[in-house]
């Protein structure tokens, strides 16, 4: 017996795919993903129209999607993150249906609740056998963890593994097993794994970024949470990684070992694990090839599903056991609401990913950002888009000082007692505005191009189209 199907056309038929149906993708190949473009172009060739897609993220490589939206092949997008030309196209109001933006934890919840009903899940599989036992660690397109695909294979009516590395049955490593997979489609290439590396996975050399990182590490050190067994997550941005670097120095000095590091995993976290700073890595997504190698070889580097990571519907999830998370922001307002979806012009440049999930779950959520980016003050009266509600943010760390959410009085007093420069967020806003002036808000159109759906399933904000220049 074999589940191998030679062509997409054939697999579309076998899955009973029809106009108006929903298909899903995971984004572990990140900006090196070929599968989404490949499937959509085949759908177009077969004459499909009004297809709804639910990729866990959309990257610049998915630019061809624009033409298929224009042709009516794709009419709806449900995703957690979006950058590049497609994001720009959506921002300009060129798609009729607003994009639904969820969080990494909210997406599996939406599948469980039936808010996203996936008809066919296409799973980019770096390695598969003929029966659909797949993993992300073998083959030339190895991307490591397949964490975001787990909910898709669990809930989709049909599951198609798309692979460029067919191995003898049974696959020696099984991440998603054959009980979940209907068909296996071999292709010449599922993507370019070198491009899973984000451009921001190196520690910043920018002196302002390093100052922010040092200050963030100080907040962690003085917060009282830095003790044996603590857990930690940080993004892959240069300043977040630099904060991890400074944190490591403190851990070494104080002889502290953490329990687990989590998130998108980079070489820095792998080094943390290998050098004994953390006992375990919980990996929902690998951000570089060192992480891919580690998840394959090190049993303490564990692949976790998006549901286990952050699904608020589940009996429990790991973010609820997270002590500290460091996150970024394009804007933060004086109520501590954070925007990671749009820039100050209202253009879509990202999405929540795990931002709002980890902010909600962690004991200490730190936002790191320069007070002024380029010519713009980052603290605003009201963020352009609310991605993460302010009541889940604890501390803002900038190069000029720290602002603590007023609902964390105890923490604020502790940091002041420890000699850190704690200011009110309004005070920090004033410092920035003295230098930059108060910029006018971008004038956006009335057309809604995106809905920000919080992890609990409620819409917390909408994204408006930017005006064409």
């Amino acid at each position, binding site marked *: 017996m074999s589940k191998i199907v030679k062509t997409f056309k054939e697999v579309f038929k076998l899955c009973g795919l029809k106009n108006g149906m929903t298909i899903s993708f995971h984004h572990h190949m990140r900006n090196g993903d070929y599968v989404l473009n490949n499937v959509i172009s085949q759908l177009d060739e077969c004459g499909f129209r009004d297809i709804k897609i639910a990729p866990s993220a959309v990257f610049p490589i998915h630019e061809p999607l624009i033409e298929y939206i224009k042709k009516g092949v794709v009419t709806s997008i449900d995703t957690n993150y979006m950058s590049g030309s497609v994001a720009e196209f959506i921002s300009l109001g060129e798609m009729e249906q607003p994009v639904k933006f969820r969080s990494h934890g909210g997406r599996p919840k939406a599948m469980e609740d039936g808010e996203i009903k996936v008809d066919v899940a296409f799973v980019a599989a770096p390695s598969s056998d003929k029966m659909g036992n797949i993993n992300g660690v073998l083959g030339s397109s190895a991307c490591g963890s397949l964490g975001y695909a787990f909910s898709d294979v669990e809930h989709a009516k049909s599951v198609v593994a798309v692979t460029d590395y067919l191995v003898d049955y049974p696959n020696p490593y099984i991440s998603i097993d054959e009980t979940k997979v209907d068909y296996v489609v071999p292709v010449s290439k599922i993507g370019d794994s070198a491009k899973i590396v984000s451009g921001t996975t190196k520690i910043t050399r920018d*002196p*302002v970024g*390093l*100052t922010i990182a*040092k*200050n963030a*590490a*100080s907040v962690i050190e*003085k917060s009282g949470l830095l003790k044996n067994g603590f857990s930690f997550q940080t993004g892959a941005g240069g300043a977040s990684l630099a904060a991890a670097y400074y944190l490591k120095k403190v851990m070494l000095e104080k002889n502290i070992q953490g329990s687990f590091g989590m998130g998108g995993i980079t070489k820095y976290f792998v080094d943390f694990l290998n050098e004994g700073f953390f006992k375990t890595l919980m990996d929902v997504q690998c951000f570089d090839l060192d992480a891919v190698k580690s998840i394959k070889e090190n049993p303490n580097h564990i692949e976790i599903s998006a549901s286990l990571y952050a699904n608020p519907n589940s009996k429990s999830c790991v973010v609820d056991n997270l002590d500290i998370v460091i996150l970024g922001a394009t804007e933060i307002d004086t109520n501590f609401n954070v925007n990671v979806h749009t820039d100050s012009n209202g253009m879509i440049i990202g999405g929540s990913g795990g931002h709002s999930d980890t902010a909600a779950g962690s004991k200490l959520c730190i936002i790191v950002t320069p007070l*002024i980016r380029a010519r713009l003050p980052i603290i605003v009266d009201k963020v352009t888009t609310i991605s993460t509600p302010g009541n889940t943010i604890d501390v803002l760390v900038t*190069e*000029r*000082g*720290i602002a603590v959410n007023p609902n964390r009085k105890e923490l604020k007093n502790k*940091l002041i007692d*420890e*000699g*850190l*420069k704690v200011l009110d967020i309004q005070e920090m806003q004033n*410092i920035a505005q*003295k*230098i930059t002036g108060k910029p006018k808000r971008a004038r956006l159109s009335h057309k809604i191009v995106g809905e920000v759906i919080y992890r609990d399933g409620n819409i917390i904000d909408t994204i408006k189209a930017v005006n064409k220049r």
Partner: protein
Amino acid sequence: MISLKRTMLFIPGNNPSMLMNSIVFGSDCVIFDLEDAVSEKQKDAARILVRNGLKTLDFENTEVFVRINDISTKYWKNDLEEVMKGKINSILLPKTESPKSVKEAEKYIEELEKKYNIEKQITIMPLLETALGIENAFQIAKSSERIEGLFLGAEDLTADLGAKRTKEGKEILYSRSRVVTAAKAAKILAIDTPFTDVDDDEGLVKDTIFAKEIGFDGKASISPRHVDIINKIFMPSKEEIIYAHKVIDAIEKAEEEGKGVVSLEGKMIDAPIVNRARKVLLVLNKSRGVM
């Protein structure tokens, strides 16, 4: 004048972002550079940028220096005219070789102070970076009341000496000792040359410890990444911290009692002593956190 100068961080005068953020790196002083960091073509632009920065930005407790171009150039007077329109504490005078050049700069500074109604006297820090400057160190140190310290510049100096600049710094040992001795004889500060390898923290630590051991009061830096290390090594001594506490206690007590003149252990406490005590305690407080 607060005279704690553990770190003096150079900021290129033509870099708006660094200018704007100059105080966030934790150095006791910043030096906005109009000289070596700025090419001939950008002299005007940098001068205007620095002037505007000095007029608009709040430097909080950080002392502000400007390195103007040396007095043999056509730029130095224009530099002073512009930067003295803003808030500055001191002028770093490059390639100072004799008391005469200090006097010349001082005369023009005085003129501008009158013209701009500047009440607080602007101080001068001569930068000794030629063989002649080193040999005249004591005379230079004593040439003006405005001089608060001597600053050693080893890069130009080694070129002038025909020596090779090394990390070990044997080639500048004599000059370092000479500058320290001259400064201490004149009862002013001695500031050491920057360590120029921005990626060699170990080398920086060695070089800074050595500078402190032979009597320097602080060290220049060309990289914000060096500031923390230098600050740590030049932390005030335990005795100085205790004394600073006593000074502040005495001042507070005198204020409560409405006394104008304050003395401690039989000696009168004047404004520079109080300022230094405040700075010592500020530094101590800052060092508890990172900021």
